[in-house]
């Protein structure tokens, strides 16, 4: 049971989450990310270091170091809801894979007591890291943001080759249910062509049945102010419902995937 003592850094635990994985879930947000997506709605997740963010005029410390055991005490509280809904633990971030041992041991601890697991991640890590967590992972909600390496790099800070390769390998492993998620960001990837490319790629991944189109929202904007950072997407409006419906049709016409809007 050594895995219970593994330490890591989180910035939030959110219970009753119903938009990230099956059923009613508890999301643990791990701190630190390799990407710097311009639209990121959790900018406080990006730095691994502990930060102070102004929230409604008051300073708030973002980030705390905890053991797996401590996190599981909270996760365990909603077991009755997981049992009824098929929900469980979801790791999110940040990019959880930046804290590979902690992420692995959290998932391990949940599986060891019969709680279903999910991971929301860009798969931006060495495959060995991903491989180490797959035995404990029921559902992998993997972001694929763009098929074009240059544009990917321009908007997120990193090229996409590693992530696409990891997507192929995770799918090929057959060890987890892989679901592809696409944040739909105007000016970045919201054209039918761009979405079609992602859908075609996802469709070829063995075993993948579902794709989620997540419309861009601006709920994270205040956090940029709170961190003293500029929000580069100020003038971008969220996509309309009609536009999202159109993109959903594009996915359906170009793949056999089950497509849903939102998580």
């Amino acid at each position: 049971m050594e895995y219970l003592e593994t330490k890591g850094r989180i910035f939030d635990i959110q219970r009753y989450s119903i938009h990230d994985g099956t059923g009613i879930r508890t999301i643990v947000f791990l701190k630190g990310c390799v990407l710097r997506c311009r639209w990121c709605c959790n900018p406080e997740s990006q730095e691994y270091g502990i930060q102070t963010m102004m929230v409604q005029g008051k300073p708030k410390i973002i980030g705390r170091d905890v053991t797996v055991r401590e996190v599981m005490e909270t996760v365990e509280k909603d077991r009755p809801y997981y049992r009824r809904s098929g929900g469980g633990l979801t790791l999110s971030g940040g990019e959880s894979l930046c804290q590979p041992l902690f992420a692995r041991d959290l998932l391990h601890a949940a599986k060891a007591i019969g709680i279903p697991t999910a991971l929301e991640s860009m798969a931006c890590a060495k495959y060995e890291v991903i491989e180490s967590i797959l035995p404990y992972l029921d559902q992998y909600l993997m972001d694929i943001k763009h098929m074009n390496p240059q544009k990917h790099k321009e908007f997120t800070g990193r090229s996409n080759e590693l992530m696409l390769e990891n997507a192929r390998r995770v799918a090929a492993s057959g060890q987890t249910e892989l679901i592809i998620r696409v944040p739909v960001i105007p000016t970045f990837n919201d054209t039918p062509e761009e979405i079609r490319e992602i859908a075609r790629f996802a469709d070829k991944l063995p075993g993948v049945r579902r794709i989620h189109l997540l419309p861009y929202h601006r709920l994270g904007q205040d956090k940029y102010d709170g961190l003293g950072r500029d929000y580069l997407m100020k003038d971008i409006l969220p996509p309309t419902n009609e536009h999202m419906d159109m993109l959903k049709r594009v996915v359906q016409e170009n793949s056999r995937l089950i497509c849903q809007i939102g998580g």
Partner: protein
Amino acid sequence: MQVRRNIECAGTGGCPGSRMEEGMERFYTQEIPKTDRIPKLVEHLFAKMPEIESARAVLLTESYQETEGQPIVMRRAKAFAHILDNIPIIIRDGELVVGSTTIAPRGCQTYPEFSFEWLEAEFDTVEHRTADPFYISEKTKEDLRKVHKYWKGKTTSELATSYMAPETLKAMEHNMFTPGNYFYNGVGHVTVKYEKVLEIGYRGIINEAKELLDQCNFGDGDYATRSRFLQAVIISCEAVIRYANRYALLAAQMAQKEKDPARKAELAQIAKNCSRVPENGATSFWEACQSFWFVQQLLQIESSGHSISPGRFDQYMYPYYKADLDKGVITRSDAQELIDCIWVKLNDLNKCRDAASAEGFAGYSLFQNLIVGGQNKEGLDVTNDLSFMCISASAHVFLPQPSLSIRVWNGSPQALLLKAASLTRTGIGLPAYYNDEVIIPSLMSRGLTLQDAREYNIIGCVEPQKAGKTEGWHDAAFYNMCRPLEVVFESGYDKGEFIGVATKPVEEMTSFEEFYDAYKAQMNYFISLLVNADNSIDVAHATLCPLPFESCMVDDCMKRGKSLQEGGAVYNFTGPQGFGVANMADALYAVKTLVFDEKKVTMAELKRALKLNFGKGLDDVSVGDMAIGIIRGMQAQGIAVGNEDVAKVVAQIRSMDISEADKKRFGEILEMIDQVPKFGNDDEVVDAFARDVAYTYTKPLQYYKNPRGGMFQAGLYPVSANVPLGAQTGATPDGRLAHTPVADGVSPSAGKDVHGPTAAANSVARLDHGIASNGTLFNQKFHPTALSGEKGLDNFVALIRSYFDQKGSHMQFNVVSRETLLDAQAHPENYKHLVVRVAGYSALFTTLSKSLQDDIIRRTEQGWK
């Protein structure tokens, strides 16, 4: 018609996302659209402000004047008959089920035999008050003034007052509790044996009464009362039959004149129905609907009680529906339309309460609770087609009545819960969800048999009972758990007057146990006074207002030859409801933590902070209370106090300056209180504390008896009184400011639960819901996005089931966005039909007072971040 039959996963969990599958035929779940008739009926009903009519009061008084000196039960029956023979009747446009208590839609009659003085005092304000206004014509005022002269000194409220101990009256003056409901009105709060009337009709009941009368021996000790009671039953039932025949005649006359052939045929059928039922057993679903309606309506003419609850409508109506469907004489669409018509009619009944009570029961609500689903006496699930159609009916009419409820247990069909959830999602606040797995054992612990407990339904807001066997007095008083704590801080005094128990000055207390014991001592004392108040009122009802018509439909009144009011029911209870559990849990825990454990605040400081409302300003009520306290103190010292002295004291309090140092310290104290963990956040230590605090109300109460031979049992729910009664409560140590609302039911204090709906539900489930056998009430508010899509409904149902797995008893929801409610406050004209969940019931949002609207908006909204 496309018929799709469904069955769902067995509902034992572990089947997330599974949808209904074609297969075994159990019940019809598909949506049946509403007909054009329904919106027209609704529109007609809401065209005008409700109106007060005088016919009943006048007829009642005429009869009483002729029956002076006769046995009271006979006088009641004769008055009931005189009313039914003469009260104006009307068939509204397009109605399929007829019977209206007033000519004006949603109008009300008055009931001077219970109380009348408040109405006369409010004649000129009732039309313009914020909560539940009623129009009243000058003619009606004049009629009522005339008959009220007769009633002076003859009402139940006057007799009850004369039975009460002086200590009780004083505690009531100080707003320690409010037994206003039955003090000023009839009792209601009953579910009668509708199935018996549907089956044998009132002719059958009359025959039973006659047989029982024949069996009486002149020499029996109780011959006098028994024989008169049975005769009163016969008089009442005969009157009901004549009343239905008046409708039959009216319908026939209207049919004759009617030009539209379709309506002509309807009226002709209505005439046939009314001449057949409720005199005889129903032979069709339509007749059953008409028969049901006369029972429901006439119970409310006999007495002014509210919460007369149809109960398990889907069960007792089913045989008539099934028979007609099998015979092919009715379509599902026909049946749905009839049910929809009944739903509209349930909103046609109304009641005018005094201004203060109207705040506590806001929204013109009659709390006619109708429940679907659940088990039969053998423990089998008995969900049927009608269970689904009842839910559809609420969606069709989109009105607050009936208070639709649903029974949930481990064997409840998932399809039924999903159907219910889809109604919840509309934002109507219906249905409320009840947990068989808690309620059945809870009722058994109060003496119900297993079979009876399995057949429970809900009365009014949240109160479980066995239909046709119970006189439950379910809504017997509001008991504000915060007030005894205020009295602890004043060592038994309130506003300068000694009203409680002489507990030690709080500054001298050295341990939390001592403080908590003082709270319990005050609680116990005021609970005993509450019992005294309720029992006095109980005796007054038995003496002056026995109800033979109601009693003939509840066992064992006929066999015992006694009315319900005199103890004729099989099960007798009195259920006064406590509220403010969350405030007291948080308050006592804060005192324990800050004063005794951590010693960060002294008791003297806290006492002063509370008195001065944490330095947040004193409103007129606080100034008035303080002034009364000071003046009483002066008088106690023998000082004569004149008007100018009073003015001086008030001026002094108003000009009192709280020093900057004090203000700063009070601010610090509030901040520290804020940091102490609060109930509702899944903190096991605080939650265990809350459980114990709830016991300070629920445990002592169960040892008291009522005059009908039954016991007291606690409920933990507030109706909507947490707002007006909060306005009578000073600042409390949980950081709640003076005269703001207290927490509703067993819910956490508004805005104090910050870890989402599962954490709040876990906390609330840690209270002992079983001992609060008169019901508990847990409100949650969701943003509509939380229920979107099929997945949203699945997760929502899972949330309910999970709370119930942990032994929560009741759950209800508001699914309206904060923005919508704020907009409705600003532009009420655009939201005439916005229905929200208030407490154990739904009401039209725009009819609620501003403060109650604010309270609903303030409830923590659970959604996603």
